């Protein structure tokens, strides 16, 4: 970071009015066991601002009808709301064309779509798919299933001790047998921000298409799919302060246009007869059945909210909070941070002495501090560090230094209970 950039960052962080942000989120007023909730489990899912809750409720109250089906006024209104959400999402990630946004159930669904409809047809026995050692189970298992089915091989670029992907090994794994690369932009278990631009570049030097799992990046960073140049980008609404049950797959239009349907049903066809069915153009081709219309509308409202707050300001504030939390946690006796990558998002995975993460979670919970404990759907990452589980605090822009202090104070209680 240049000095000027660093200064901009710092200015943006100080200008950030977190109290006013917190008033936008009803969950920030919640209490557990009589104590204010400190919600530090944002990598699992995020809380929703009033504007998102209201957008969804409003759609149910005043625009509820099926989409693309009716001539009646309400259906037209519903369709307009749904398609307007698609447009917002396209703008949000700077897609060249709105039709490059496919509404799906979430990141998992998006990855399965690409595995089943795109990669499957390019995979012969002996071919390879490359992923990294950082991946969430949802960016491992679909590829494993596919490799099994096609007699292909899954190759995994290892992590170094800090939690960065070994780039030399990654480059070495890319070969003339590689048909697909699938990488997370940001790791949910460790917070590592992958050098995704470089990783995409290396794959493209060999004409290998790349899917980026953006589940953890989209809520925290400005995403520009054209600048990244990736073929696919997958993300979930619920991690972006939007509703559950909806997400988006960005796919380059020329590729989507060549891909066969993922599921069959209504919406995804042009004409159906018992002899032959003609498929609709993307994105409809990949949206069989009645979609999560209210969810998509809420997703659009979440994007509006993020843009209003400003991704640059969010990133600067979270960077500053991460630095503070890291410093505080490192002073906790016997605490070992797992994941100290060069570039990190606001995720802090740790173990405390020989106290199991589950016990840490229970003790913090009693203090009203909500964190995640376990393997974070990334068992290979846990194995890499030789721990069965970690405790993980993951921060968002509505979190505060005071909540970090409460986390640290809660960790102090571990000694009271367990001694040592």
């Amino acid at each position, binding site marked *: 970071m240049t000095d000027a950039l660093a200064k901009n960052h710092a200015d943006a962080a100080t200008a950030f009015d977190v109290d006013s942000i917190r008033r936008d989120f009803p969950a920030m007023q919640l209490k557990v066991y009589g104590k204010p909730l400190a919600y530090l489990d944002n990598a699992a899912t995020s809380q929703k601002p009033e504007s998102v809750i209201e957008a969804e409720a409003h759609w149910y109250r005043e625009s509820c009808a099926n989409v693309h089906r009716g001539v009646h006024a309400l259906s037209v209104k519903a369709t307009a709301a749904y398609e307007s959400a698609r447009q917002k999402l396209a703008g949000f990630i700077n897609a060249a064309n709105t039709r490059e946004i496919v509404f799906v159930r979430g990141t998992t669904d998006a990855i399965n779509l690409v595995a089943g409809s795109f990669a499957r047809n390019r995979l012969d026995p002996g071919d390879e798919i490359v992923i990294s050692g950082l991946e969430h189970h949802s960016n491992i298992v679909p590829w494993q299933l596919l490799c099994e089915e096609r007699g292909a091989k899954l190759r995994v670029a290892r992590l170094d001790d800090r939690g960065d992907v070994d780039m030399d090994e990654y480059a070495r794994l890319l070969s003339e047998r590689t048909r697909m690369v699938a990488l997370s932009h940001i790791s949910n278990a460790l917070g590592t921000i992958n050098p995704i631009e470089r990783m995409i570049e290396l794959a493209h030097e060999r004409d290998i298409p790349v899917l980026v799992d953006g589940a953890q990046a989209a809520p925290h960073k400005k995403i520009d799919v054209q600048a990244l140049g990736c073929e696919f980008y997958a993300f979930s609404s619920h991690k972006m302060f939007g509703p559950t049950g909806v997400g988006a797959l960005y796919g380059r239009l020329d590729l989507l246009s060549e891909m066969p349907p993922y599921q069959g049903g209504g919406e995804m066809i042009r004409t159906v007869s018992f002899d032959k069915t003609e498929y609709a153009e993307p994105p409809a081709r990949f949206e069989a059945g009645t979609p999560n219309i209210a969810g998509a509308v809420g997703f659009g409202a979440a994007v509006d909210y993020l843009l209003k707050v400003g991704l640059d300001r969010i990133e600067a504030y979270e960077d500053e909070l991460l630095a503070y939390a890291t410093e505080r946690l490192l002073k906790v006796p016997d605490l070992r941070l797992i994941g100290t990558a060069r570039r990190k998002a606001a995720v802090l995975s740790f173990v405390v002495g020989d106290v199991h993460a589950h*016990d840490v979670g*229970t003790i913090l919970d009693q203090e009203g501090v909500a964190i995640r404990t376990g393997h974070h759907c990334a068992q290979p990452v846990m194995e890499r560090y030789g721990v069965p589980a970690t405790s993980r605090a993951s921060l968002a822009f509505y979190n505060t230094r005071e909540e970090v202090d409460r986390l640290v104070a809660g960790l102090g209680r571990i000694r009271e209970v367990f001694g040592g």
Partner: protein
Amino acid sequence: MSDLMDLYQEVILDHNKQPRNFGPLPDADHQAEGYNPLCGDQLKVYLKLAGDVIEDVHFDGSGCAISKASASLMTEAVKGKTLAEAEELFGGFHDLLTGDPSVRAEAPAKLGKLAVFEGVREFPVRVKCATLAWHTLQAALAGDSEQVTTE
């Protein structure tokens, strides 16, 4: 805080720190592996039977304080018991954790040391930690070679 102290009783902390009957049992004739996918607890229970009496029982693996202490106290509780008695103990233990409080009024007496887990009642997400060892014991007795999980 009082709830926390109810959960993490002295006896539980002691068995967590110094688990009894810990480690494999070389001449075991039954064994099974238990797994709690929620938190990654993983333990193995080894048994040696003489007729229908549990002559020896060991466990090993990794897990939270509740699951480890529960496994340790279980091995002490069932050693020397008949299979029927062990089964009955588990029934009582299960009721202690999840049952209707009025029905299990006299149960803790029969359970002996196992009664220290009563505090787990107040932490429903932790019940599975406390019962993992017992489910694994059942699986070992049933001769299931497959891993049991709490899900």
